[in-house]
């Protein structure tokens, strides 16, 4: 059973609405039988569909088709990129990673530290959420020989801050250290040219289909020809022996349709979303003068669809609830498995207090976002904010009933 909402959907960073053409292509491709590894002509047909899709996805990130390793989603791509590079670089043990990364990275490197002897070195972020390049350089220089890899987000998924990936890569490349880039939140919002990044020293880059209007359940690790990774999954040896398992032709086809559309629309969408995003910023500031705009205020240093605020004295989850009731879907950032809103570890890494980290709201726009969506948010916000202020912070003592 599904329920259609007429909510204003302002949580595109969580997942984007599927592109209708990608749905159609997905459904049509699912009617075609054939394992792309089969030798008969039906298998060859499936293989043709798969490789066409791979070429189109490769084109969307500026890499060679052979460099696209399809995975079961973005998190698997990040795991393969980080663990795969780490194991291939044994006996080196140091992983350099900025604070405020996505949980796919944070939990992966922490697991490597607990189970595989990795030494994780967190590189500080500045107040805008950008990696401290001097600290990274110092961390590398302290002993370049024992660094297994550097991994970082291309752009922060919560506050939208774009990272200086080329400069990070150059620092690492000077010592032959591989770099993995988690570009999942940037994909579809910033142009990605893997060939150029690889020339700077990037070895691997993760993307995911559902952030750009493709289906959930497929992503890719873009892996340079020269990068060695140890596979996570063993089996039939598909995809350069890196990612075994029967390949999902229909999902790849759908992914490719979304990737092609995204690439064509990217420059225009960027301009459109910036205008819309600036309307959000102005409107929020107007409605709630105490709201603090987080991340890089310079549009050049930020994802175009991202607006991120803290509302001092409010729980982010109170605001989220009240806006939801008013028909507006937004996010507080990341929620753990039990659905409990967590204080934003990104804001904490940017030097903000626990209370500030609990008061965050992320508003993210995408392909289907309209002025009507933004209007709905700005209409609902003043009342929601006043009520959320009244509800106070979760760790404050109740006043009236004790």
């Amino acid at each position, binding site marked *: 059973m599904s329920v259609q909402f007429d909510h204003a959907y302002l949580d595109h960073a969580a997942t984007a609405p599927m592109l209708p053409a990608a749905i159609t292509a997905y459904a049509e491709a699912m009617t075609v039988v054939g394992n792309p590894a089969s030798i008969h002509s039906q298998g060859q047909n499936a293989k043709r569909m798969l490789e066409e899709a791979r070429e189109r996805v490769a084109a969307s990130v500026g890499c060679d088709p052979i460099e696209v390793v399809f995975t079961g989603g973005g998190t698997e791509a990040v795991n393969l990129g980080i663990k795969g590079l780490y194991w291939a670089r044994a006996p080196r043990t140091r992983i350099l990673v900025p604070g405020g990364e996505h949980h796919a990275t944070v939990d992966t490197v922490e697991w490597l530290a607990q189970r595989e002897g990795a030494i994780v070195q967190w590189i500080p972020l500045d107040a805008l959420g950008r990696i401290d390049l001097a600290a990274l350089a110092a961390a590398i220089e302290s002993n370049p020989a024992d660094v297994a890899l550097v991994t970082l987000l291309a752009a922060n998924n919560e506050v939208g801050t774009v990272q200086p990936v080329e400069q990070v890569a150059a620092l690492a490349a000077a010592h032959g250290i591989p770099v993995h880039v988690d570009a999942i939140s940037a994909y579809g919002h910033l142009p990605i040219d893997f060939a150029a990044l690889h020339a700077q020293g990037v070895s691997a880059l993760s993307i995911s289909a559902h952030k750009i209007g493709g289906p959930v359940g497929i992503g890719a690790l873009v892996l340079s020809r020269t990068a060695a990774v140890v596979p996570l999954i063993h089996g039939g040896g598909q995809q350069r022996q890196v990612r075994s398992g029967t390949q999902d032709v229909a999902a790849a086809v759908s992914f490719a349709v979304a990737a092609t559309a995204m690439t064509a629309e990217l420059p225009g969408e960027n301009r459109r979303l910036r205008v819309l995003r600036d309307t959000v910023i102005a409107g929020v500031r107007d409605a709630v003068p105490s709201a603090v705009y987080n991340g890089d205020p310079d549009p050049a240093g930020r994802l175009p669809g991202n607006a991120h605020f803290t509302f001092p004295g409010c729980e982010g*989850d*109170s605001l989220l*609830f*009240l806006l*939801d*009731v008013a028909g507006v879907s937004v996010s507080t950032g990341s929620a753990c*498995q*039990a*659905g*409990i*809103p967590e204080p934003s570890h990104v804001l904490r890494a940017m030097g903000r207090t626990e209370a500030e980290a609990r008061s965050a709201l992320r508003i993210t726009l995408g392909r289907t976002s309209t002025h009507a969506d933004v209007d709905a948010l700005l209409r609902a916000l003043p009342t929601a904010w006043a*009520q*959320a202020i*009244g*509800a*106070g912070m*979760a*760790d404050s*003592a*109740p*006043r*009236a*009933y*004790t």
Partner: protein
Amino acid sequence: MSGGVDSAVAAARAVEAGHEVVGVHLALSRMPGTLRTGSRGCCTVEDSMDAQRAANIIGIPYYVWDFSERFKLDVVDDFIAEYAAGRTPNPCMRCNEKIKFAALLEKAIALGFDAVCTGHYASIVTDADGNRELHRASAWAKDQSYVLGVLTKEQLAHSMFPLGATPSKAEVRAEAAERGFSVANKPDSYDICFIPDGDTRGWLGERVPPATGDILDREGNKLGEHEGAVAFTVGQRKGLSIGTPAADGKPRFVLEVRPINNTVVVGPKEALAIKEIAGTTYTWAGLAPEHPEIEFACDVQIRAHADPEPAVAQVISVPADPTATPPVEAHTELRILPTEPLTGVAPGQTAVVYVGTRVLGQCTIDRTVSAVPVASVAATDSTTVDA
């Protein structure tokens, strides 16, 4: 919605009664377990998923609200401090008082809700003047009015208990099954939710530093030593490890835990009989009696599953006593005199006062008076009880 059958059915009934309902699951730990174990029925990720599935079936929105910080301060830390102070607290009661009908209610009201609706078995009755009274559930076997005894008039004004009139838990389970709730046959939870394996003593032992102290008899003679008063609870018989047997050869029981000087007082079973209980922290559930200073007949219940016992109660004024250690300021206390002496009473427990089925109020027990004076135990060799 805890993820249990009662709150799921309560939510469904509230919807059918015409209310606009939102399911809220309380996150009481920042590090919840993943899967349910043993007799616990809440607080794991699996339980929150059960709650969400029930909300889905009912067709209501569902959210998780984080009260883990307040729960730690007001319930868990309080539980430890109370035990460390030689008292026997009821954390579920504290949770109702401080979390469900305080922190949660306050947040809910601020966010535009009118009431907190729970799956407790209790009834709210509105009198002719529109005042809300808290009453026992029709099914006395499942009645939970005791743990709601801490609710005040203001809290009751914003509370709903749709299961109060249900004849039995079996009926609630049958209704849950009929509604298609996967939790229809989920086991009831009995243990304290924040003590995962149910080993309260072991859990407390890790949190209250042990300290060797004396075990005394009622006359103050040292009988032995213990390794931490927190390990003892009033009425306990086992684990006293006293070398010398009692003069009368009868088993000895813990009568009192005195954390101030870290001593445990033991004595004969008869001395556990309590003829008077009193507490300075008392509340009225609904309208307060007009003249609480005049002795009134009531029933008193001192544990969630104890029977109510006939008693008289009154609020008495205690004058200041600057010579006492520590000095006492003038105050009032609710004093309850059971008609027959009670056993199993310990400071820290809650005494809930009923008039018929109505919960009149409650106090946290601060002091008790044994029905058996010290001298008479010695004189009568404890074979007769001189009440």
